[in-house]
């Protein structure tokens, strides 16, 4: 099952790369630099997805005390942190040639950085508690509190006048005006990175189960 997921993700990423570099046209104003979008946007989406999964799994853990939910939350937080890191790095590399700066304290960038630190703290907390059951409980509480900050992050781009352009795909009121090949390339990459996320989480969850088994 996990193996199938892995091959699907790998195939998706290959197709995604082809779409990003061959099918999608060169963008007018930015030139080829705009192709960074096909890795930046999907990783950002996966980061949000991962933290949403942490939130739900945390609630399920507190309600049902299922060890699987706890492992899912742990795995998803870890994978989410990795993807958030890639989002920030690729965004920074995209920002330098287009905005003219690696980093600026604009609302969107700042809040994603805060998200990154928050979930690093979450992983740190998990590492500091040896008792499994108590660690799971504390982490679940922290996962819920941290997730309540995510709406702040997502909607900040609408509240605040920022340098960061609003999301291209899910624009409120009205369909996207982007040409079809760009949209298609973006969608394929979104799917591919989501598959990669699912593969990582499945694998990490299995690993956590084995690690706990080995310790018991």
């Amino acid at each position, binding site marked *: 099952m996990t193996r199938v997921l892995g091959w699907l993700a790998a195939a998706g990423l290959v197709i995604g790369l082809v779409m990003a570099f061959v099918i999608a046209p060169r963008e007018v104003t930015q030139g080829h630099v705009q192709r960074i979008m096909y*890795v930046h946007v999907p990783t950002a989406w996966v980061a949000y997805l991962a933290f949403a999964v942490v939130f739900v799994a945390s609630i399920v853990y507190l309600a049902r005390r299922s060890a699987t939910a706890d492992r899912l939350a742990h795995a998803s937080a870890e994978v989410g942190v990795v993807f958030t890191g890639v989002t920030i790095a690729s965004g920074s590399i995209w920002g330098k040639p287009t905005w003219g700066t690696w980093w600026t304290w604009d609302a969107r960038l700042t809040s994603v950085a805060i998200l990154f630190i928050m979930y690093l703290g979450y992983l740190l907390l998990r590492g500091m508690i040896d008792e499994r059951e108590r660690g799971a409980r504390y982490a679940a509480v922290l996962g819920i509190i941290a997730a309540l900050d995510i709406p702040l992050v997502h909607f900040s781009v609408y509240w605040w006048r920022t340098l960061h352009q609003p999301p291209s795909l899910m624009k409120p009121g009205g369909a996207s005006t982007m040409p079809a090949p760009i949209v298609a390339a973006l969608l394929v990459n979104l799917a591919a990175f989501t598959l990669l996320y699912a593969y990582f989480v499945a694998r990490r969850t299995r690993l956590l189960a*084995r690690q706990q088994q080995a310790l018991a």
Partner: protein
Amino acid sequence: MPDNWSFVIAAYAIAAVALGGYWRRLVRLERDVERRNARPRRPR
């Protein structure tokens, strides 16, 4: 408008290194656990 290919390559390279590195870490940890789980069963 210059195309800044170096930035594109850098962004994709960093993504590949980070995600590939995470994948390798998973594989390594899995192997470690496997070894530890296997050890007690083996007679000395």
